[in-house]
Each structure stands twice: as structure tokens, then as C-alpha cells.
């Protein structure tokens, strides 16, 4: 029972308390870019969730298998002879994420061309999306087990999707609102995102 409770805590804290977009401020480029229409927002959230979940799993494996090859010790390699490859962490993780994004790009191109053209330039941008890399690095920092990292990834993706779809809803309402000329488009979107993130600050108290 204790394990499940811990998992639920991880998901909630990743999705709401330190929501990746509105509290940690990661993954803002697609957040602003993709929130014009709700359909594209949902498409993007699905893609990001897919990438984040898989990335959490793959990076955990890469970390344990390649970057901290402790299992080599079992094969008689002296503990200090094991090469220290921690500095490769960033590049290895980025490679994993990039490959996954390329995979998702092909998947979407085949199954749903209209969504593919709607996502457009923002699909490759998931690779440099700080949220995805952020999740993966946090998984490593807090020494999560494989299952915990997976759920942290899913939780973070959930948080990302909530923020994105919520914001897309707000922006669609903004189009009809009577906004002074210079504020039309991105400025008003940014200001409402600021207010939205102030609202999300309230979650800080949840597990402060």
C-alpha cells in the first residue's frame, strides 16, 4: 500500500504542486506556441505525454546501464576501474529524447497528417523542450526507481497537458474579447499566462 500512496504523491506533486509549466517554468515555447486552438493543444499534450513517459523509462535504463555501470563490478571489474561517465548525462538523455521525438514525428505523420501539419515546427521543438529534459534530470536527481520515474514523467506530462489545454481555452476566449490593438495576440496571452501561474502558486501550499 505504501508504494501506491507514494506513487500518487509523486504524480500529484509533478502535475499540480510543482507543475512544470506554471511553477517550474519549463517548456514555455510549445506552451505559448501551441495554445492557439484546443485541438492542437490536445495533440501536442498527447505527443509530449508519450515522449515524457517513454523518455523517463529509457533514460533510467541508460543511466543505470551505461552511465553508472555498477553491474560491471559483478563481472570482476574493480570498482575504481569503472569509468566515470556522468558528464555524458546531458548528451545521452538529449539523444534519447531526440530519437523518441523523431519516432513520434513519423508516427503522427503516418497516422494523422492534419495534426502533423498543425503541430508543424513545434513537434521537433519538443526535443529541446526544457520540460522533457527537466523531468528526466529530476528523475535522476531524486534517485527515483524505474516505476517512480515513469510516474513522475506521466505526472509531469499531465501537468503540462492541464496547463496547455487550460491556457488554450483561455486564449480562445481571448480572441473574441475586446482587447486594445497593441495587446492583441501574444502580449495578452503572456499576461494571462502570468495570472494563470499566480493562480498555480496556490498549489505551493499543498505540499510546500
Amino acid at each position, binding site marked *: 500500500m505504501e508504494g501506491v500512496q507514494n506513487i500518487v504523491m509523486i504524480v500529484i506533486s509533478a502535475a499540480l504542486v510543482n507543475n512544470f509549466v506554471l*511553477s517550474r*517554468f*519549463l*517548456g*514555455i*515555447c510549445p*506552451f*505559448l*506556441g501551441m495554445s492557439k486552438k484546443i485541438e492542437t493543444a490536445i495533440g501536442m499534450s498527447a505527443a509530449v505525454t508519450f515522449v515524457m513517459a517513454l523518455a523517463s523509462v529509457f533514460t533510467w535504463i541508460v543511466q543505470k546501464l551505461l552511465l553508472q555501470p555498477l553491474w560491471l563490478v559483478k563481472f570482476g571489474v574493480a570498482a575504481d576501474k569503472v569509468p566515470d561517465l556522468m*558528464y555524458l548525462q*546531458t*548528451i545521452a538523455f*538529449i*539523444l534519447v*529524447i*531526440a*530519437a523518441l*521525438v*523523431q519516432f513520434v*514525428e*513519423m508516427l503522427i505523420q503516418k497516422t494523422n497528417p492534419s495534426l502533423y501539419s498543425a503541430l508543424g*515546427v513545434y513537434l*521537433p*521543438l519538443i*526535443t*529541446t*523542450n*526544457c520540460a522533457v*529534459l*527537466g523531468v528526466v534530470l529530476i528523475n535522476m536527481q531524486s534517485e527515483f526507481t524505474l516505476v517512480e520515474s515513469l510516474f513522475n514523467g506521466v505526472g509531469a506530462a499531465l501537468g503540462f497537458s492541464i496547463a496547455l489545454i487550460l491556457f488554450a481555452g483561455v486564449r480562445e476566449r481571448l480572441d473574441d474579447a475586446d482587447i486594445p*490593438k*497593441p*495587446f*492583441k*495576440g*501574444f*502580449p*495578452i*496571452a*503572456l*499576461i494571462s*499566462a*502570468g*495570472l494563470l*501561474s*499566480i493562480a498555480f*502558486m496556490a498549489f505551493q501550499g499543498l505540499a510546500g
Partner: protein
Amino acid sequence: MNYRKIFLNGITKENPVFRLLLGMCPTLAVTTSATNGIGMGLAATFVLVGSNLVISLIKGFIPEKIRIPSFIVVIATFVTVVQLIMQAFIPSLYESLGLFIPLIVVNCIILQRAEAFASKNKPFASIIDGLGMGLGFTLAITLLASVRELIGNGTLFGLQIMGAAYQPALIFILAPGGFIALGLILALLNLVSAKE
């Protein structure tokens, strides 16, 4: 291939922060003080120029199906190499810029420029584009950083500007302030460009 146009394009017409709204993560996270802004801008420019050059050199070699992984791996290697060399041989510079270098890997501008420009143009043009974009990025975030630092902390480049009576609006240093400050600046720019 009018180089002047490419260079200015990065600063005004297609300013990464104000027009394309890219590189938001470092922009919002780092611009709490003007010195941070400049530091981040310069580090990003250096990496942007370097990676644009490398990618435009090897663009023929990379098949279309694996363009994203190859580009990003080149960028990540470039960033890690720069970080290691700086940490080892130029510690003073690393002291001020060191914090920003890992942030650059996740900076959307670099991959976007690589994919949109460097993978389609000759190396020299890519360098100019990298410089233009980098400078545009530096100017934009330094402006944003000074506004946020002035309002949120009452100082500018660390020097106390506002009188002691000034109660700094802390929200501007916090991240929601980043959104609002950037929104206001964009609105101001629209107003100005709408005038001419």
C-alpha cells in the same frame, strides 16, 4: 545572400524573443537580473554561432529521417565541450556564465535556427544568422531583465537605483512577473511599430 539583411533580421524582424517567442525557458528563468541577462545572451550567442557553423558544414551528410537527433547531439556536444573547457581554463568567465551553459542545451532557438536556417544555407551565412539571432536574443533578454530587476529589486546591474523608500514589487523577480513583464514589453513594441 545579403548578409546585412540576415544579420538585422535576427535583431529586428525575426527577433527570437519578441517576434518568434522562442527560447522562453531561459528567458523567463534567467532574466531576474541584467547581468544574468547579458551573461546568458553571450553564452547563447557563442553556442548558436558555433552550432550553426557545424550543422551547416555537415548538413549534406545527415539523412532527413534522423535530422533531429543529429542536430541536437551536435548542439549538446558543443555545449558540453564549451562548459568543460571554460570550467578548466577560464574559471573567471565560468564563475559568471557557468550557471547558464547547461540551460542553453534546452534553448529552443538553437535547434530552431539549426533546422530553419543552418540546414539549408552555406556556413558563412549561418554564422551571420547565428550572430544576428544571438545578438537579438541578448538585447531582448537584457532589456527584459533590466525591467524586471528595476521593478522587482529596485537595482540595475546590482547598483541601487530606486531610493530606500521604494518597496520592490517582488512578483517581478518571481516567474509570473516574467510573463507579465514580457507581455507588457511586447505590447509596447506593437504600439511603437504600429505608429511608424
